[in-house]
């Protein structure tokens, strides 16, 4: 079976997040809990549905990943870009993925 992870966007800021093993929404795909059998996928789906209903996240999806030397890699490019950020420098003069310039 293809391994799967649960992903969504956080309601308050829209940032892409993945469900980790402790049931928290992590900002890195590499922290995601990986479902490797059907029961685990069912549990992921139920967790995602509940989190959506609890208004924690939006756009909830279970996505396919592969594990290469311990690193998770989504099969679809769309999901890889969601996980890694835009494949380009943002704009002339902007330096990296540090996040918003203003304080969190």
């Amino acid at each position, binding site marked *: 079976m293809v391994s799967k992870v649960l992903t969504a966007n956080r309601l308050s800021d829209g940032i892409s997040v993945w469900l980790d093993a402790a049931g928290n929404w992590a900002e890195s795909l590499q922290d995601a809990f990986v479902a490797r059998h059907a029961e685990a996928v069912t549990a992921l789906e139920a967790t995602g549905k509940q989190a959506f209903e609890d208004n924690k996240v939006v756009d909830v999806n279970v996505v396919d990943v592969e594990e290469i030397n311990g690193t998770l890699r989504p099969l679809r490019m769309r999901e890889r870009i969601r996980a890694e950020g835009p494949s380009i420098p943002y*704009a002339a003069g902007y330096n990296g993925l540090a996040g918003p310039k203003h304080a969190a």
Partner: protein
Amino acid sequence: MYRYDEFDHAFVSSRVEQFRDQVGRRLSGELAEDAFKPLRLMNGVYLQLHAYMLRVAIPYGTLSSRQMRMLAHIARKYDRGYGHFTTRQNIQYNWPRLSDTPDILQELATVEMHALQTSGNCIRNVTADHFAGAAADEVADPRPYAEILRQWSSVHPEFSFLPRKFKIAVTGAERDRAAIQVHDIGLHLKKDENGRIGFAVYVGGGQGRTPMIAKKIRDFLPEEDLLSYTTAIMRVYNLHGRRDNKYKARIKILVHETGAEELAGQVEVEFAALKDTELKLPETDIQAIATYFMPPALGNRAEGWESLARWKKTDADFARWVQQNVQPHKHPDYGMVTISLKPIGGIPGDATDAQMDAVADIAEEYAFDEIRVSHEQNLILPHVALADLEPVYRALVAAGLATANAGLITDIIACPGLDYCALANARSIPVAQEISNRFGSPERQAEIGELKIKISGCINACGHHHVGHIGLLGVEKKGAELYQITLGGSGDENTSIGEIIGRGFEPEKVTDAVETIVDTYLGLRRDKDETFLEAYRRVGPQPFKDALYGSAQEAA
């Protein structure tokens, strides 16, 4: 420039407070996503791949320095230090927090800006020629009419839930710089034989998955009938436009299925009933709006001719920039400056907060405080004295904004693509960057001449690929990106939809394919004055197919 009256101020402020309440209820869980989504979209807030996206309206692409500074401030305070100017003359921010959006809208309202009707099945931001009010070839300024349409269409109760979104563009010259024939309604401002102002009316153009060139259904509509006739079109569309299938819901499908002549007849029936109602525009109202768009007092600056010639002789880069990025103005002592947002290898349409501030400063000092956004994702200073071109250029160089490529092969339109957009199937920006780098040398660009490349990351065609001289459409095939190439498209007064040239190209091969096309053109053009589009229209696709795929191979 149009200034808000008391009604406008009160209306926009009340909408901000309404949205603040809605966001608060969403974050507290009182409102579910299904209920909230249409509300956020009505205020320009989308959800994209990495974050929310806020699309801010820039009516007919016209901005003051004060407004541009606010856009810079929003980028700095609430986003990641940049914004993206779009093909609809708007700006998008890629990283706002939902919780910040009411504050952003409140700050925008202080400079008479908002995000209303930048999404949803309503009449969207009305676009216009970015050289409006300045172009030497203009019959009349299209912006007063765009503003009248904006006021009329804002939260219009009858047209807020159309079958699908609706886009209107207005141009004021024979040379169409607003791509009116690929809009739901295109208005070409003109004079009749008696010197009266009016419009040729085009209906049913559009791009997307079913590209269509608009049909002209009126050769001359007097200006006083603008709202009654537009209302008549909207009523016919609202009544008969398909609501069963979102892919067939745009007015272009209705025009296609009904036939332009039949549809024009239906419009005329509605129009007859509306013509002499309160929708008839009194001359005094048109004049009142037009006064907001009066050109600045442009004094004679004849000394600019001599100094410009001198500067050009001493600085080849400056001379090249003037040649490419400055267009003739109505006033002979002035020019219209295109500020390219297409640095070689850069992201089409992106500007940092510092660059936006720099443009605001330059416009204030040298350009009568006026800035435009073009649908080609550049900025425009419409009124600059020739005598001031040199200091304007120096200031633009300092801000990294002096790329001399307006209208050339590196002046590429590209949608955000799969790097940001939730609808995209493939990336657009990296493709634009690679092409830009490949053709970036000034000499090579000059040798190629006018050539418009437009790139979309999905069939929705936000990157206008259908009307690119060379169009690139990114698709997903077997989990990988593939780029389909169209040739011969054009979005001007001789609009044409590009033809698919053959099978698509992988990302690592698409720039080579573009180069093959360009080299083929250079080899077959009659002389240096025959542009790519003219040459393509003369010879057709075959030489390009042969060059790309080999004459014996099956191209399709």
